């Protein structure tokens, strides 16, 4: 998992509440064998018309937001089905940080598992950031996780709260696996004990 320290990037405004995971990635894309490559289907129904052509008015289709790495939205972002494909699609598009008044629980969790930083800020602050974001590439935001601040284009710093353990994992780039691997010595020791105590356990060999 990629570390998250400080991100300075264009923010895309998505002034919607209750963006569900079906909107983020529709069910018909779940038969995939990959977690990468979903970015082209991100927000599929909002982004493309029935013929598959881009809707020019959708934010991520506008030239100034095609490389956005931050997303600003309103309440209850990521509600609905628990599919991990939603953060996979966001990440694959390039989104590393989502700022909203609040998030659905499982989605919030899944973001951390995949190196995406979800930032909770009160609605009026989100509205101010939304206005900044409307300026596209002319108004880049900085999200500094180590100092726990969002820096607006005018230099104003907005502090945010985050669970210290989650923050640590993101700063270090540790997913669940990375975290467990910090206990590698204990796993090694267990395996030594296992080979002694249950030495009858066969190894599986192919063929």
């Amino acid at each position, binding site marked *: *998992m990629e570390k998250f320290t400080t991100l300075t990037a264009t923010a895309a405004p998505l002034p919607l509440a209750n963006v569900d995971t079906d909107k983020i990635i529709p069910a018909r894309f779940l*038969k*995939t*064998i*990959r*977690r*990468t490559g979903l970015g082209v289907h991100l927000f599929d129904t909002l982004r493309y018309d029935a013929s598959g052509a881009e809707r020019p008015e959708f934010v991520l289709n506008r030239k100034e937001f095609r490389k956005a790495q931050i997303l600003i939205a309103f309440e209850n972002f990521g509600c609905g089905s628990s599919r*991990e494909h939603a953060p*996979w699609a966001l990440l694959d598009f390039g989104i590393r940080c989502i700022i909203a008044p609040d998030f659905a629980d499982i989605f919030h969790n899944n973001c951390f*598992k995949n190196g995406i930083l979800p930032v909770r800020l009160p609605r009026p602050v989100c509205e101010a950031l939304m206005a900044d974001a409307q300026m596209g590439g002319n108004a880049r935001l900085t999200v500094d996780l180590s100092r726990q601040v969002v820096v607006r284009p005018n230099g104003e710093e907005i502090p945010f709260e985050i669970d210290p353990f989650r923050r640590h994992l993101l700063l270090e780039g540790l*997913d*669940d*696996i990375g975290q*467990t*691997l910090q*206990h590698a010595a*204990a*796993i090694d020791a*267990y*395996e030594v004990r*296992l080979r002694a105590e*249950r*030495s*009858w*356990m*066969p*190894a*599986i*060999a*192919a*063929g």
Partner: protein
Amino acid sequence: MAEPRTLFDKVWDSHVVERLPDGTCILYIDRHLVHEVTSPQAFEGLRLAGRRVRRPDATIAVADHNIPTSDRRAGIAEPESRVQVETLERNVAEFNVPYIPVLDARQGIVHIIGPELGLSLPGSTIVCGDSHTSTHGALGALAFGIGTSEVEHVLATQTLLQRPAKNMLVRVDGTLGFGCTAKDIVLAIIGTIGTAGGTGHVIEYAGVAIRALDMAGRMTVCNMSIEAGARAGLIAPDETTIAYVAGKPFAPQGEAFDRAAAWWRTLPSDPGARYDRTVVLDAGAIAPMVTWGTSPETVVPVTGTVPDPAREPDEARRAQMQRMLEYMALAPGQRLQDVTVDAVFIGSCTNGRIEDLRAAAAVARGRRVAEGVRAMVVPGSGLVKQQAEAEGLDRILMQAGFEWREAGCSMCLGMNPDKLAPGQRCASTSNRNFEGRQGPGGRTHLLSPAMAAAAAVTGRLADVRELA
């Protein structure tokens, strides 16, 4: 003296690598079974992170969920299924994971081949990205299904982050009546405790009726633990278990086997071990069971009738029953034995073992599949198929008009071409009767292999005891 422990406690304790401050445990995994549907993103995750499989020698892969059950030498026609199988083959080659190829005689449903090949051993921890991993608990193993992120976690670390479950004891006393089987026991249990009855628990099945079951029957019972809401089901290893494991190709051999068996004999729950919940059933009171609705708990004896929602006091429950009856096209008070079927499916990880096929063939022998009924037998593995053919079961079944297929999950979930057409009614030995499970609009009645064969030859949900 140490606190008396349950079978679950013993297997759990012997696999805890480390207890974290919040009570979560890093649990060591002895056997990881991998299949084509839930593993692609896990392998991809390893690749993206530059990780390797920690213990390929504790991992084995097989394709089962979406392979066709017709002749497979020509390859897989459905593009998405083919891509999943090809992806699995690329992944096992890249990560050095042992693999049982599609055309290998040992190929089959992952939960059939684990025990059959001696991969699943008593006292071990077994996981697979599939909920019916509970099947392997029949050997006295702690076996449960996991999600794709967890598949990746096990591949990378050989461990899982888990919290201990609560212990539930389901004791089945007495002796099963004529014509009744393990499938009827487990359907009766689910009918009693409900599909949420085991939530948060692992179920230990005990009692003389469970002890009397052969290993195939025990696997049928543990298989459906998940339908009772439990993540895992276990049965204490005994001499039946040990005799079953002896000589299996991936099991310990010779002197190593004796040392293993000595440990396995210490695993049964201690006298006085505490359970958070206990349920007792009398096997003598169990009749051949059939489901009428779209949840496995909607089950009645075959001699019964479709229940009347009007008698259900709870409003939500009443509405749900109504919906089920509409979907199933059944009327309150209708006798189940009068319900006619269009299809019969004998197979799946619940009932795709040789013992199940023998039971079906015993009913089919000398009879004919009823006019207009499509009856399909899908052995759980290539080895089950070989064995059945060696015993002549295939000829008995085919003479009776059953289709004899290649091994796989098949019509249990209709991910391959074996599907019900909308509105078709099927007597099925599988484990789930959810809406559309066997094909969109399909209607499923769960029952035992003997009952399924009886349905095939009579064209209705017959009481197998009347065919004897």
